[in-house]
């Protein structure tokens, strides 16, 4: 009954604009107004929430349940409750610890590089007066190449004996001592994967930063110019602090991409040499699909989730000024 009157009120507002005077009287009551907005908020959120709920919640809840069980979905008939066993044994699984370390190395170097490069390239595009269409197309192109195919292509580019890169360095530039197995030696394997990931994804970061730059009001920039600030000062004192809202988005996206990395190391090195490039997602995947251990895999999945969530929240905290 109560919902009916809310619906009624909403219908009134939408469909009968000539009742403006009536609405005006009502909207003069601020507290009432807030309540209306609140219920509209729920309505606005509902469709998206429904989508997510149906498709993600059921799988997530079942996965959450499995993470507390012992369940090999091929050989066990039913999951057997096991409490926190999966979570605890994750931290004594030395393979998992190694993957955590590798993921940390990857994610941190990726995060720093992609944020820096994205910002720098955006600044360059922003400052360039003439048409940037061609440059934009080039920089954005790698993001539409499916990463799984790009990774195979780069496998070939970086191959030791017949790859393009060593060919260019060795035969064309005659710098033989710099040729090496890029993906087969410990010192360069992870770095190569990071670079390939940067190539494939920095275009999007650049778009995000460009949008942020464009939304800085021209007045501020004018003022800085009038005050005689040179480029570097304008950047550091005026632009960077104003990009806070953008850092939230680019930061979270970089964190997600960095910590959830899977395809590139899988295809390019499969975790080799040794375990040097084995990342967490690979370990989770193997446990789920090669060993069929659903219980353990889901627990590892949640551990990864929580780590990502923690870093995302840190990113949010740093960059958002609480305003409600």
């Amino acid at each position, binding site marked *: 009954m*109560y*919902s009916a009157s*809310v619906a009624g009120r909403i219908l009134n507002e939408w469909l009968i604009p000539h009742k403006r005077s009536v609405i005006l009287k009502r909207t003069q009551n601020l507290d009432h107004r807030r*309540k209306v907005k*609140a*219920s509209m*908020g*729920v309505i606005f959120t*509902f469709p998206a*929430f*429904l989508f997510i*709920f*149906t498709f993600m*919640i*059921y799988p997530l809840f079942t996965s959450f349940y499995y993470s507390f069980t012992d369940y090999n979905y*091929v*050989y066990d008939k039913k999951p057997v409750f096991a409490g926190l066993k999966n979570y605890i044994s994750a931290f004594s699984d030395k393979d998992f610890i190694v993957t955590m370390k590798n993921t940390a190395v990857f994610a941190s170097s990726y995060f720093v590089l992609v944020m820096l490069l994205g910002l720098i390239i955006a600044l360059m595009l922003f400052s360039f007066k003439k048409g940037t269409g061609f440059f934009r197309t080039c920089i954005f192109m790698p993001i539409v190449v499916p990463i799984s195919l790009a990774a195979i292509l780069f*496998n070939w580019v970086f*191959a*030791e*004996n*017949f790859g393009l890169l060593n060919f260019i360095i*060795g*035969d064309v530039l005659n710098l*033989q*001592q710099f*040729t090496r*197995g890029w*993906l*087969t*030696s*410990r010192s360069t*394997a992870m770095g190569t994967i990071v670079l390939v990931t940067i190539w494939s994804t920095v275009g999007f970061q650049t778009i995000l930063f460009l949008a942020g730059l464009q939304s800085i009001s021209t007045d501020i920039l004018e003022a800085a110019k009038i005050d005689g600030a040179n480029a570097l000062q304008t950047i550091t004192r005026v632009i960077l602090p104003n990009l806070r809202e953008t850092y939230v988005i680019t930061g979270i996206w970089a964190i997600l991409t960095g910590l959830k990395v899977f395809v590139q190391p899988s295809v*390019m*090195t*499969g*975790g*080799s*040499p*040794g*375990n040097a490039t*084995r990342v967490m997602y690979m370990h989770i995947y*193997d446990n789920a*699909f*090669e*060993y*069929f251990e659903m219980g353990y895999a889901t627990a590892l999945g949640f551990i990864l989730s929580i780590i990502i969530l923690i870093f995302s929240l840190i990113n949010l905290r740093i960059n958002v000024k609480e305003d409600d």
Partner: protein
Amino acid sequence: MTKKLTLTVLLLCVSMMLVFAGGAQEEAKPLGAAVEPKVVRITGQSWMIQKILIEEAAERFMKDHPDVKVEILTYAEDSVISNYAIDWSRGKTPVDIAIVQGAQFAAQFVARDLIYNFDDELDFFTGDFTRDKFVGVGLESSKIQGVTYEIPLITEAYALVINNKMFEEAGLVDAKGNPLVPKTWDEFYQFAKKLHKVQGGVVVQQGASLQWSVTNTYAMLLATLRGARGTVYGDDGVSISFDNPEFREILRIWKKGADEGVFSKEMYGDHFAGRNSLMANKLAMLVDSGSRWIEGASTLGKESVTVIPFPGADTNGSYGWGTGIIIPKASPAPNLAMQFIKEQLLGQEVQTGTVNQYGKMPALLKYFEMAEDPEWAVMKTIADASGAPPTYKEFSKFQKATPPILQNFLDGRLTLDQAINEFEALVKSLDKSTI
């Protein structure tokens, strides 16, 4: 107020979830329905369809039996077949025949009783297709706990593929001009050293490349263990044994070769790198599946490439496996499927075609005689003596855990003793029971 609204919304969502969560279980179909539909649906990976000449086989079968239809589906990856288990456990199936690689993969279905065995449930080994007519290693790799769950269509085994032009140039040939065969791993190393050429710091000709990849190290280990000792197992006959003087010697030589660059590490992350190097005319010796020699011949010509045994492979055997088919119990046409297999897939056109065109060995012994090239005699010897993979429940752990140990050892991060100990500890930790 909003709380109530939020609650109503949540309730709606919960009810939607229940709609999806509940699902009626369908009853499994009875085994082999009385009247079978006249359709055979077969699925395989793209390369299997191509190299086992399935499309041509289907055409011939449909011509011979005009009332029958053969449908070919291609699957992108193994996980698709794994997911079919969900269909099969509900009594339905989109395919009647699935081409898979070995009983190891089929084990997940056997555990849930989802596929037929060919010993008694589907009486396959009769007439021209009795067990003795099959290549030994093919059948062996199709068994789980002694019961055959897969019919092999092609077999492969690890051998040593060489570029004989490079051998000639290095003087590694006998009086008749045939390439010398290394009888020990030390000889292997010496050959590779002779064949390895470096100019100005760049490798222009790689001596040898071994299958040290994350995907196939386990096969390499099993192949060389067997070649050295005649068996991969230790005294208990069940556990793979690494702690023996022969394997220690092998590891020692591998490390020496790797340190000197004579043995390439290119296959660490990419199990095709060796084959690509071979085809690029940059590699002299390749330890990989014997079928690679045909692939090398496609760019270099058959006179330039040949296949010989790696040390011990011809006497003690190598590691062999079969790629074959399984039939789900949910299939309504198992007998028609078997007919297709017997008439076409194990028939002459497919079995000789796959050898001559793609280098995949036949599953039936008699077709070796019809193979065009003399190399197949060598391969037959190797295949006949080879052993199939162990059918451990946790074999995939073995497959995944061995590459890091080997690679860490070759990179100098583990001593020989440490590596051996890790291998042994790994084998000890596995659930070696068959399902």
